[in-house]
């Protein structure tokens, strides 16, 4: 949207990305869960968390994809146009496949952060993994054990994401000189 020729669309996107990236995720969560009820919008913990994380990741991903699109040389747009393609078709067939390659590493970073940031949801009463670990730890007094175990689970999730990332990178790298 920020790349749109429509000034309004582009401005809305710019403000959105700026707010999302310029405020802590924790604050965003709190605004949605604790803040909104004061203007009459009550959203339960789970949906609150899902909404906040989605809005947050969307802001970051939008910026990454924008940068990736801009990284494709202008000549590629022109080559698309000269074979008769419209802007949309050039974007879809020519530009995005090349942008995809560039955006995989930063997008992976964002998703890995998301996995770890999901622990913040415990603070708005979502009984996600970290909160459960806390509860069990408080009950059993096995703090070290349980927090290390939670850490291990986060790590395994992220390892899976990382290997997905390398697979995608390899696949998308097949047309690049090494």
């Amino acid at each position: 949207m920020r790349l749109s020729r429509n000034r309004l669309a582009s401005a809305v996107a710019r403000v959105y990305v700026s707010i999302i990236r310029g405020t802590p995720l924790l604050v965003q969560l709190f605004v949605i869960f604790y803040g909104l009820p004061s203007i009459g919008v009550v959203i339960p913990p789970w949906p609150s968390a899902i909404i906040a994380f989605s809005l947050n990741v969307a802001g970051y991903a939008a910026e990454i994809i924008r940068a990736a699109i801009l990284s494709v040389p202008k000549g590629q747009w022109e080559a698309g146009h000269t074979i008769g393609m419209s802007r949309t078709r050039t974007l879809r067939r020519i530009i995005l496949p090349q942008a995809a390659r560039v955006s995989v590493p930063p997008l992976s970073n964002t998703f890995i952060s998301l996995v770890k940031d999901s622990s913040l949801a415990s603070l708005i009463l979502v009984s996600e993994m970290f909160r459960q670990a806390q509860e069990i730890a408080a009950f059993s007094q096995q703090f070290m054990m349980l927090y290390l175990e939670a850490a291990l689970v986060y790590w395994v999730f992220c390892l899976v994401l990382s290997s997905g990332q390398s697979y995608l990178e390899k696949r998308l790298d097949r047309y690049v000189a090494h």
Partner: protein
Amino acid sequence: MSHTEPTAGRSGQQSNLLTVSGLSKAFGENVVLESIDLAVQPGQVTALIGPSGSGKTTVLRCLNGLETPDGGVVSIADGPSLDFSGQVKAKDLSALRDQSAMVFQHYNLFPHMTVLENVIEGPVQVKKQRKADAVRDAESLLARVGLADKKDQYPFELSGGQQQRVGIVRALALKPALLLFDEPTSALDPELVGEVLGVIKELADGQWTMVIVTHELAFAREVADEVVFMDGGVVVESGHPDTVLRAPKEERTQRFVQRLLNPF
């Protein structure tokens, strides 16, 4: 500004394939083209020469709709005759663009597609040709430029000369009425220039209508039916290659030709 009448009377009264009149373009304050006139008849090859910054590439880009002129009328083959001094509809602009195809200085092949995919992309996606037909056409064109065995390779696996030949084939596959070449050999190593010029010469002999922006004066003299010398956004002199390149009338043309022939 003294304009030489373009191509007057050289092939009789045959109607032009390309007609440009009063083409003008400015980037902000910077006037790049001032009222350019051009006419190219079917099967004719026109070479645009001139110092860098003279506007010759911009002329080409305007013909292919990569730049929108500020004024002037452009008409190519069966496409619409577009007057750019008024509003031009996107539909008409794309109809104009469909009449020509551009070969770029830096090839601009699609790096994520194989050679064959590069060539059939336009015919299949835009012209809605059946894929089997497009592949057959593409293979025969690739064979003609000596690249039949490279069809499944990616552009990065090819030399510059090979990439540019693919660029030419990609343009040919669209069967445009007019082929545009923007300094097709300027980015090539000297030893690779010949193979690309050879292909272009064959096309010229094969009756393709072309406008070529080039610095290769010997090549222009060999293939062009008309040479147009531009400087400072205007056409300074145009005419038969032997006249413009060997015995130019205008002083600016003389200086330019001299400089290219004797760089030291």
